[in-house]
């Protein structure tokens, strides 16, 4: 664990430590980080403003058509622009899912881990029960039957993802709850919320961040699966899962219409997982990530 440095040198030691860490980053992880940076830029900036413009007269064209490097889809939309614009739908939702489920995880997990007793029993039974259910299938069923748009689907995934986060946070909090430094805060008579916020959570934070990061990849894969089935998106939106299901019928006329968004999903999810795995390895080696 970190020794608390005096305030003046803290910034410098941090910088030095960061530089030392960077030197140990494998190439694949560095490339992945660049991919994620590019994806983040696509989310923030309006890179392809005309992605949804249809050209029905043009119709489907193969890759290499002048002006359309990856051709056009059945509505005459440019595949490259559509894929670039789809990054927003593919990334914003999963990030919110990861954040939301971890928020639930931290709230319920630390409550269960720190309080123990009947609170812990109730939360743990709930987690056991929900973890035993097939999450993706339930997501498909709930999103399909209840209906609703993108954000309803995000909400469903938040609920379905939270049990494993609750379990992870609870386990980590339990490890700290009975260590001497926490016992001593109790001797000092600090209120429970303060012990939790100021003393336990900072120690659990690396694990929380890593888990959250890895959840983004899983949420991305799950959400694109849902949108592939047409759940959670309006028809015609710029979304990779939707592009795949539309492009399924164009495999002969323009295979790029499904291959490009398919590769995009795999690329981004792999990048998130590589960076996440790296962070989690760092964590297991005892460094604070």
């Amino acid at each position, binding site marked *: 664990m970190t020794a608390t440095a005096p305030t003046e040198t803290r910034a410098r030691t941090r910088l030095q430590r960061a530089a030392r860490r960077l030197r140990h980053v494998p190439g694949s992880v560095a490339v992945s980080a660049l991919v994620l940076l590019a994806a983040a830029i696509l989310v923030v900036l309006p890179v392809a403003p005309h992605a949804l413009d249809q050209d029905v007269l043009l119709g489907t064209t193969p890759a290499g058509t002048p002006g359309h490097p990856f051709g056009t889809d059945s509505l005459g939309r440019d595949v490259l622009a559509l894929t670039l614009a789809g990054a927003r739908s593919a990334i914003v939702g999963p990030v919110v899912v990861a954040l939301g489920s971890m928020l639930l995880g931290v709230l319920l997990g630390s409550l269960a881990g720190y309080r123990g007793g009947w609170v812990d029993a109730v939360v743990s039974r709930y987690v056991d029960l929900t973890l035993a259910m*097939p999450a993706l299938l339930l997501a498909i069923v709930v999103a399909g*039957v209840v209906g609703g748009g993108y954000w309803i689907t995000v909400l469903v995934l938040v609920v379905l993802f939270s049990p494993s986060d609750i379990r992870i946070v609870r386990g980590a909090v339990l490890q700290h709850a009975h260590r001497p430094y926490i016992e001593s805060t109790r001797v000092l008579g600090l209120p429970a919320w303060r012990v939790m916020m100021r003393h336990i959570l900072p120690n659990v934070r690396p694990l929380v961040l890593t888990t959250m990061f890895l959840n983004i990849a*899983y949420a991305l894969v799950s959400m694109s699966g849902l949108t592939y089935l047409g759940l959670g998106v309006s028809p015609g939106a710029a979304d990779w899962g939707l592009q795949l299901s539309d492009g399924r019928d164009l495999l*002969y006329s323009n295979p790029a219409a499904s291959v490009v968004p398919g590769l995009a999903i795999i690329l981004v999810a792999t990048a998130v997982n590589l960076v996440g795995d790296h962070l989690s390895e760092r964590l*297991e080696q005892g460094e604070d990530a």
Partner: protein
Amino acid sequence: MGVASFLLRRLAALTALLVALSFVVFSLLHLAPGDLVKNLLGPRPATPEAVAAIRARYHLDEPFLAQYLHWFGGVLRGDLGVSARTGTDITTVLGDRVGLTLLTAGLAALLAIGLGVPLGIRAAQRTGSLTDRLVTGSAVVGVSAPGFAVGLLLLYVFAVMLGWFPLYGTGEPGLDRLRHLVLPAVALALGTGAVVVKVTRAAVARELQQDYVTFARSRGVPERVVRRSYLRNASVPVVTSAGLVVAGLVGGSVLVENVFALPGLGVLLADSITYKDVPVVQAITLLVAATIGVTTALVDLYTAVADPRVRRATVGRTRTAPRRGAVPGEAGTA
């Protein structure tokens, strides 16, 4: 104590899970927009008598709990109800479809386990080697690549470009059927196989670091014998992940069947969702959950047989979730 009481406890937990899940799934019917009576009537005129007859037959006028009990009683007798879209008996419909899904998922499981376990063991035995890095690298891609996206890529390469495999359909029973199911099975197996590789590698690597392995080797115990003991110990977490494997195959097959237009349970589920055919959705969800539940129970049984400590613990369940980030127990011990 012993295996018998352990089994009883697991059986009770399984029953509780299924009852809870059936309740959740049944509640969906009431959350779902749309009118069941209208669906069931179809094109027939909605005379007050017909509506009343349907309401009586499906107990629609009774309170929610009574409806649930009626439905659950039927499920226990093997009667899953009637499709709201076609009016056919759901048990029959499922019976027609389940074979294809089982065949595809079975092939995928065979591939995932048959390749995943040996690769995971090999990677763990040579940690840091080129083989290890290749295997773990592809496992990361495998975990990240959703089955339907892989399926489409496979279709493009092997069906459109090379023409080795058919584009969709199930073909004639026999060898032709097998040829039609190769690509779906591979697409389905990739994600699951990657999880199997990760779990196996982690389990074997953990055992290899144990003192008993070093000790046995230093005493000159033949490697064949050492291998047998550490593989046996590593088998527990690997088998434990079988529940994950089944859940992954089931969730994935809904999507993969759609990519390859295979008329199995997955396509039926997707269609039923599109047409809001809630009774069918309920039946499939329950069937799948029961399959996963039974698998998990069998896995627990194996764990209890292989590791006596589990039998003695009150709650013998420390399942890991390799897909979903770091395992809590490991973080602090490193």
